Each structure stands twice: as C-alpha cells, then as structure tokens.
C-alpha cells in the first residue's frame, strides 16, 4: 500500500489536517508503519500538484493546514482499490536458492538447512501470534495486519515442508545425485511469467 493512497483513503472520510492524517494513518496500520511528518506533507504536496487533493489556501503550511479529496482523487482511489497488486513471483527467492545450493553442496545436509529456516520462521510466527493473545488490546485493523503476516510466514513453512518431503522421497527413489557430483542447478524449461 502506498502512503499516497492511504492518505487519499483517509481524506475520503472528510477534510483533515496534516497532523491528524499522520496519527490516523499509524492508527489504521496497527502502528506497524510509522510515518514522519515530512513524508506526510511531501505526499500531500504531490497529491495537490496532481489535482487529487485541495488545501485551504488561506492557512499557512503546517499542522493546521486542512486538506480535502477532489473528484479526481475519489476516482484514483476507487481505481487503486480494485487494481490487483503485483503478486507475480520474484525472479530470485533467496530461500529457494539457499535450499537448492544446499542440495548440491558436499557435506551439507539439506534437511538440516531446511530445519534451520523452519525453526526461524516458527519463532517469528510465535512472536506475531503472541500479539494476538491480548484480544482486548487488539483492534480489527491490527488483527488483519498480524493475520496477513502469519499467513505469509505459514506459506513459506509449507513450502519448506513440501521441499523436505519431496527431497526425502527423491532420495529413496535415487533420483537425487549424490552430493559432490558436479551438477548444475535445475533450469526451468521455460520462463513462467504470471501477470495480474
């Protein structure tokens, strides 16, 4: 999510002051995304330049300057809400590469490497889950942020589990070359590009 669209979303509720926008932004993102005042004003100036927000001309620049969204801003926000983010896979996932390299390195147990990463991810998930324990101090926005992070980490662990199982079966079948043999990383036969 861009700061630009977050500010437009806050202004779609009604006119607001710069300082108020910063406070509400942090509140809505569960305070996991702190903003400084400078970022807020720079973004508001650009939005105004692009005709997406208007300000009170009379007031001086500063915390008391009010902003409101324009019709163009409303359209931009509606368009952004419905535009899928770029979820195509990154060209190089570092964890995938580490596991593939471990598979080919003499003297390295790939299952041990997988377990190191699995443990680290579970420990991270424990920290996020702990934030959910206190339901009373937990608003819906924050819960959504925490859940998103837990599902993301969980999907990486599932991949590690699947890789672990696949490598175990391959070792039984004898379809993995013995470590130390000169082998190349498998190359995909064709480039897979997923576009939204």
């Amino acid at each position, binding site marked *: 999510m861009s700061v630009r669209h977050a500010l437009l979303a806050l202004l779609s509720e009604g006119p607001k002051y710069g300082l108020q926008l910063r406070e509400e932004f942090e509140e809505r993102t569960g305070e996991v995304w702190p903003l400084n005042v400078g970022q807020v004003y720079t973004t508001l100036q650009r939005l105004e330049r692009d005709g997406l927000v208007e300000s009170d001309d009379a007031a001086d620049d500063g915390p008391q300057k009010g902003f409101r969204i324009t019709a163009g801003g409303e359209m931009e926000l509606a368009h952004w809400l419905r535009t899928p983010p770029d979820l195509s896979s990154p060209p190089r996932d570092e964890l995938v590469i580490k596991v593939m390299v471990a598979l080919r390195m003499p003297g390295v147990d790939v299952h041990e490497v997988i377990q190191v990463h699995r*443990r680290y991810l*579970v420990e991270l998930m424990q920290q*996020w*889950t702990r934030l959910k324990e206190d339901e009373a101090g937990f608003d819906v926005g924050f819960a959504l942020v925490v859940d998103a992070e837990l599902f993301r*980490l969980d999907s990486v662990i*599932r991949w590690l*589990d699947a890789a672990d199982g696949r490598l175990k079966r391959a070792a039984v079948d004898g379809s993995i070359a013995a470590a130390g043999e000169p082998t190349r990383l498998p190359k995909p036969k064709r480039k897979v590009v997923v576009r939204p």
Partner: protein
Amino acid sequence: MTVLELRKVSKVYGDGATEVLALDGVDLAVAAGSLVAVMGASGSGKSTLLTIAGSLEQPTEGDVLVGGAVLSKMSRNDQARMRRRSIGYVFQDYNLLAGLTAVENVSLPLELDGVAARKARAAGMAALEELGLTDRAGHYPDQLSGGERQRVSIARAVVGDRQLLLADEPSGALDSANGEAVMRLVLAACRRGVAAVVVTHDAQLASWADRVVFLRDGRVVDQTAPRPEPESLVR
C-alpha cells in the same frame, strides 16, 4: 513443576522385516502452565508420542512420568485412574459420544471416576460455561457445529482437576477462526496451570505454543528458543 516427562522413549511396531521405529530416544519435559507444540510431517511419530505420553500405549524402551510418577511402575488400574483423573485428551475428530448431550459428554469422565452424578454435572456445566457453551449444554453432538464440538471436547479434557492436556491436531477440519478459538482455549487452560502438548503439522497452530519441538523420523531434531517479547516486532 514438571507434569510430563519422557525419558529416552522409543517405540517399535512390528518385528523383523516389518519393524518400524516410530520413536527413537525421545526426551521431553513439559512444565505446569506451559504449552508445548510438537511439529512434524505425517509419519514423524507425533501421534505415537502423544498416545505414549497419555499412557494409551506403552513405550518399547524408556520411561514416561506424569506428575512425577513412572507409568510403567504403576498397576493397570492405577494407570487407568491416572488417565481419568489427570489427563485430558482432545482429538481431531472430537470423539464425542453421539447419544449423550454436550454436558453429559463433559461430565462423563468424572462420573466414570466415581464422582456423584449431580456434582459431575455441575462441574461439566462450569467447564462449558468457561468455553462460552452454556446454551449448548443440552444439545447432542450432531446438533453442534464443528467448532462447538471441538470446544465441548476441550471442556471434557479440562473438566475437574486435570494436570495434563494432550491434543492431536485439535483444529483438524476447522477453519482458521475456529482453529484460533481452540488454541486460545488450550492456552487459557495452560495459564490456569495445566501442562499441554499439542501435536500438529500446522505452523499457525504451533505458533500459539510457548515452545515448539520438531520431530523427524521419530527423533526430536530441534526446538524453538524461549519466546521473545512481542515488542521486538513493533517499533
């Protein structure tokens, strides 16, 4: 205080060519008030570990101690009494008796242990109330949703004065909201002093635990560090 302790526990099924080593020298200690998750792929020995910890099966080698008492040195009757009084079980498929209402299911272990029916029912109602199920007390299992059935089975597992709660994939077929509710209840029982072991392949479930132990091919291969403070994530 350590409620459950496994010392060099091994379990072998079958013999000769069909011999399978399901657990291989497992050490595990679970203190009162703590929740331990055991993670591993299917076939890693998780369920065997749980049935042995709950004295539903005997280890081939090693000792299991519940509340400091060595199970193998107890008579069969004493073991059965220990299971009824001290250990609560939660299974993936709930294991509720279809012909009994929710409160009858919950109070059954107490009645089997000789507690008077009225007193057992009162304790059953108290356990259901704690899990927000008072209005479901008179319902039969087939009149309850999956999430409600699992909450009833947790009430049955913690009713009375249980020290140890053992759960096998407790959120099995439940959606994530109900899975979370189940883990909150298990954690709440731990915060009241119960020791709990949850075996699962699901990292989201395991992440509720104070400690996660990783099982692979019947061996404990790793475990998480003590839980750090959550503040380290949000700055």
